[in-house]
């Protein structure tokens, strides 16, 4: 039961809630005043720190990907300006090599003074629309070092005793493609940190400096105590898994492993990344701050009710081999850190799903960004346009529940997708399709959520290029507990006048694109949970009525035979006897499919007898989806994991026929 608190229970509870409210007020202010559309769509976070820079409160609605990094940047600013901080100062930093995320995430930090001494810091972190570098939006897939990525902001003073340092602000703005918005966002973020300052000073006024100071520490102790109690209640043990980045563009075929071993010992969790691959020749590397954040966010998913602050971060420890893909050092490119980030998160989901089966969840679709820009030919002045888009997709199947359809990527569930009507006003692009993609959910007893497909036509535009940042074209979204993978990510383009699609895949940059060219990409569904042959046929039937699953794949993936009675009235029926027979057949055959020579599968794909979903779900074979060439090393890695996550969990079927449903 309750241990004695350093504060009386009411003061403690009031301070705890007030700290969170002060941070949420910053978020509210930012949303209403920001210029960056990325911030507006909720890629931001806010924090209140104690005088040592530790996080005392972080926003309830903050994007997951900033969790656990704000105290690093606060502390680096403190190091830089020690002894030289004044009321009304605001500092800026975006440095990933001292614990930031990537260059676009620019943090403004304000020291809060009470009685002439710093009592706290407030921090507002937002994703600016551009921070320079070689491509619009500052995502250059081809970068290997940070110099092409954007401006690295080591700690700088942006406001001095209440006055904007115009020289410094102008230098920042002048190094971006969107200077007017950058100045606007500097003001919006600086104001937000002041909203928090106002609240803290109110508390100091009411409760006194000492009490507030004690409160800032007590709320961290409180969260630490709660996490540790829950960890201690879990029997000690070790869990391990690995997930992959598709490839190293600077090297040959073969997926890039990120290995994680979780040890729970007493009231502590240790995440050991030993065995993970060294950094690779692209932007898909993570520095230590981002890796720390991925662990915090992944673990927090299993403690959804606890407030976020440094108390939470004190309950776990990370071991990351130096120079590995989860510990990139300057000047290795890290703008694409979200790719390893999401792999770490999903790996943590997988391990914790075993510890807390009641909250189990299979793999989610992969975050994707599309950037295309050039000159807008619709207007006489031909202004520059920058179309920067991201899509929702399916989340993993759960224990007793299907995965969520069309939801924001797991790196930041608060992030909103953009309205097509807004995009069409701003850019010479017409979208012809933005719909749920039938058969995208990974099959399972509880299927994954559905992904989407978005298809657009480039209108009057000049000097336009397209880039795409995604992954899991090969490390396809996986199922757990016998569930199946969903489908590969990747973008295809149909040139104006051409009758055939070109597959450009999940990562490319600066490909020229012109008027009339059509570009289209799906997002994967979530991975399945549990053996799809155990899914209740009536649920498959409902999915067919809603076109989440086709009649054809209902048979192939679930072994459920569905008769179409009157499609216009959504009238379908399950053929029970045929279903039982088909499920028996699949049970007998699926081991054989998995042992099929991958070259044979590749040949079938090229001949058109095996499609992409068959290759992934039935044969666990990964190909170059354009040419149909086998990726042997990748396939062997994929099969190894498929065996562990899916095949090993399939029962003999004696108790799982439809009669048992």
């Amino acid at each position, binding site marked *: 039961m309750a241990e004695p608190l350093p504060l009386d229970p009411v003061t403690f509870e009031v301070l705890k809630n007030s700290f969170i409210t002060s941070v949420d007020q910053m978020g509210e202010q930012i949303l209403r005043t920001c210029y960056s559309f990325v911030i507006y769509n909720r890629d931001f976070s806010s924090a209140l720190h104690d005088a040592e820079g530790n996080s005392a409160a972080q926003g309830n609605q903050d994007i997951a990907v900033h969790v656990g990094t704000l105290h690093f940047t606060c502390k680096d600013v403190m190091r830089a300006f020690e002894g030289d901080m004044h009321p009304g100062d605001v500092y800026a930093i975006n440095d990933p090599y001292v614990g930031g995320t990537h260059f676009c995430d620019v943090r403004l930090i304000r020291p809060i003074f009470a009685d002439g001494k710093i009592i706290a810091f407030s921090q507002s972190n937002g994703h600016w629309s551009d921070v320079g570098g070689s491509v619009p939006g500052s995502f250059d897939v081809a970068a290997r070092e940070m110099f092409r990525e954007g401006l690295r902001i080591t700690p700088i003073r942006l406001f001095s005793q209440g006055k904007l340092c115009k020289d410094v602000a102008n230098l920042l703005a002048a190094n971006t493609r969107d200077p007017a918005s950058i100045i606007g966002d500097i003001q919006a973020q600086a104001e937000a940190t002041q909203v928090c300052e106002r609240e803290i000073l109110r508390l100091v006024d009411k409760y006194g400096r000492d009490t507030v100071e004690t409160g800032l520490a007590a709320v961290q102790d409180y969260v630490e105590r709660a996490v540790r109690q829950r960890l201690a209640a879990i029997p000690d043990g070790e869990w391990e898994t690995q997930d992959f980045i598709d490839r190293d563009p600077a090297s040959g075929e073969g997926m890039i492993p990120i290995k994680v071993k979780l040890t729970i010992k007493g009231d502590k969790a240790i995440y050991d990344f030993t065995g993970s691959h060294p950094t690779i020749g692209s932007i898909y590397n993570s520095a230590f701050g981002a890796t720390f954040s991925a662990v915090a966010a992944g673990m927090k998913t299993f403690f959804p009710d606890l407030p976020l602050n440094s108390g939470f971060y004190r309950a776990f420890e990370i071991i990351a081999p130096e120079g590995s893909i989860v510990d990139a050092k300057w000047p290795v490119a890290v703008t694409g850190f979200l790719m390893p980030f999401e792999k770490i998160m999903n790996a943590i989901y997988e391990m914790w799903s075993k510890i807390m089966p009641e909250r189990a969840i299979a793999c989610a679709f992969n975050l994707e960004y599309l950037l295309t820009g050039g000159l807008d030919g619709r207007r006489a002045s031909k202004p520059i346009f920058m179309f920067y888009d991201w899509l929702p997709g399916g989340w993993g199947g759960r224990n007793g529940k299907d995965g969520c359809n069309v*939801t*924001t990527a797991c790196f930041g569930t608060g992030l909103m997708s953009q309205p097509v009507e807004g995009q069409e006003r701003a850019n010479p692009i017409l979208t012809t399709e933005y719909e749920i993609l039938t058969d995208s959910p990974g099959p399972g007893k509880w299927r994954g959520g559905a992904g989407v497909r978005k298809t657009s036509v480039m209108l009057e535009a000049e000097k336009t290029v397209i880039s795409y940042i995604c992954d899991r074209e090969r490390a396809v979204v996986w199922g757990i507990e016998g569930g199946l993978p969903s489908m590969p990510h990747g973008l295809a383009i149909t040139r104006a006048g051409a009758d055939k699609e070109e597959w450009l895949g999940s990562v490319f940059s600066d490909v020229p694109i012109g008027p009339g060219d059509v570009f289209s990409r799906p997002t994967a569904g979530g991975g399945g949970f549990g053996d799809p042959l155990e899914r209740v046929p009536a649920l498959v039937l409902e999915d067919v009525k809603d076109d989440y699953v086709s009649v054809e794949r209902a048979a192939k993936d679930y072994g459920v035979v569905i008769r179409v009675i009157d499609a216009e009235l959504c009238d379908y029926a399950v053929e029970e006897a045929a279903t039982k027979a088909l499920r028996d057949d699949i049970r007998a055959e699926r081991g054989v499919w998995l042992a099929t020579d991958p070259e044979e599968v590749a040949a079938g794909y090229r001949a058109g007898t095996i499609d992409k979903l068959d290759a992934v779900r039935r044969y666990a074979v990964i190909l170059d989806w354009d040419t149909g060439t086998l990726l042997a090393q990748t396939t062997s890695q994929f099969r190894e994991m498929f065996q562990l996550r899916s095949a090993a969990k399939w029962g003999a079927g004696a108790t799982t026929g439809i009669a048992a449903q």
Partner: protein
Amino acid sequence: MQNLRVAVDVGGTFTDICIMDEASGLIRIEKTASSPDPIDGIMAGLDKAAVDLGEVALFSHGTTVATNALITRRLPRTAMVSTRGFRDVIEIRRANKEELWDTYKDVVRPYVPRRDRLVVSERIDAQGKVVTPLDEADAREVARILKRRQVAAVAVCFMNAYMNGANERRMKEILEEVMPGVPVSISSQVLPEIFEHERFSTTVANAALSPVVVNYTSRLGERLKQEGYKRDLLLLHTGGGVMTPASVKDFAARLAGSGIAAGAIASRHIAMLCGFRNSIGLDMGGTSTDVSLAYEGQSRVTKDWFVEFGYPIRFSSIEVLTIGAGGGSLAWTDEAGSLRNGPQSAGANPGPACYGNGNRQPTNTDANVVLGRLGTSLAGGKIMLDPKLATEAVEEGVAKPFGLTVHAAADAIVRVANANMSDAVRLISISRGYDPRDFALVAFGGAGALHGVDVARELAIPAVIVPPNPGVTSALGCLLVDVQHDFSESYLVEAADADPAAIEAAFARLEGEALERLAHEGVAPADTVLQRSIDMMYQGQWRSLAVSAPSPIGAIADLIEAFHQNHEREYNFRRDDAPVSLFRLNLKAVGVVPKAELAVHEATGEVPVPVSRRPVWFDGGTALDTPVYERSDLPAGLVLAGPAVVEQLDSTVLIPPGTRAEVDQYLNIIIRVRD
């Protein structure tokens, strides 16, 4: 002779009826249990109150019928027809979640399932140009299928229809031709604004609710007519006005928050009567508290509104913040030793521990009983409160774990609840740029008057107003409204390029529509008031701010300056050097309904005698011997110094030491927290 005004507010548990005699201004209250068909409860209540409907000049009504239909999904089969390629806009939404971290808590399903979302070939571009005309064969095929499916309502939602509604209108014609009698909502009429999900979501809710509310209002209208009522039924909508059944079919979703707006309106009106143009409403019930704000006599209005997360209904709505803190909220200690309050609630059943229905966890009500702030009976003796059970619950749940005395523990529970409510008030006031010191707090709902002074003290609010019937204040709100419609139109222009004549023409169009609608509802031109506003932002910002606009429109420079000022008030900074954009034109059209004056009571100079005295703990320390008054004994003009407790049928008023309470001529209790 028609000299009665009747307002009915139907909630989940109770149907409240407020009857006002126009001649005397006196108000009577009737409370009756709600029934499965709300109309039965209303008629039973009217009967119980002995209202002769033949004498009723005006009948207004706030209802949760639409809200409940959405939440329970008891909706008629509704279909959505959209542009090919955009079948799933309302399911894709903005793809975000309300519970960011809980992977097992999902956003609820859309109001129309995927199987009933059909598509046709047509397309309009961002400039409003028809890229693909509506494919008539496609449209007829869809209509034929929907007819076979016997859908009861259809929403037509086409891309960029806010710029050009021609294809939607044609689709509607075809649907009406093939399936006559089935209501069809089109997005270009329901909400001609940019952003497809928000527009489609509003249109779909509108379509699905249309049969529900048309059925309900026509049945209710019919019953009232049978009983002798001769005028139009007035329905309170989310925007804080009323509309007549003539508008219900086309704007059904405006009733989706009908029940929520009433309390905010009443709170604003009562504060105005007491001379406060700025007020904050604190409506604390059994499970939750609604907080609203009026500034300069106007309720704060928002367009960010929904019944369920993910499905916006983008009509102007009175802004109400709801938090899970009510009389029945549970106090508990979490694993890490922190004292928490709510949002879980003991509800009405089993209710607080002192109800004796089996709940043993302490609630706010139990804490108030322990502190002597609440007596041992509620609702005139209908509910008995057992102080022994309350004490046990507080003792076990809070006092023992924290090593506190039972009174200190009860005090701690109440203070945490008050702090939570204060945070909500802070969010709607301070964080929106309002200084609480300029406001009065109107405390109502069953439990508001117990906590009002503490919340006011926390925020330095100088005065607390407790209306005469705190528990039925929302019904009073239904009496105090005008006919009101809100019109809006996307208007995306840089202020520097804006042409006052073009804006004037756009407003004239909206005004024409508004006058027509008001005339259709029988509002005389002399009773019509039109208020213009323009949503503006700094070029490049993503959220806009409303700026009131004159008629005729005047100089753009004045609008820009007004925008700078609003921005500075709300967000504490302005950018004089930054270009400003226009985003949307809004028009509020009001048909003024003559208000009856509330009765004025003369000061009698009588000094009431306390009905009893009891020890009351105003903090966790020692009790004060406190007089208890019966509310109906308190005459106008009375001044009471705290400590005192005032009991009445529907509430208990706490007047702590150090405060002074006055009873005004409308019998409101005004507690001066600081002078």
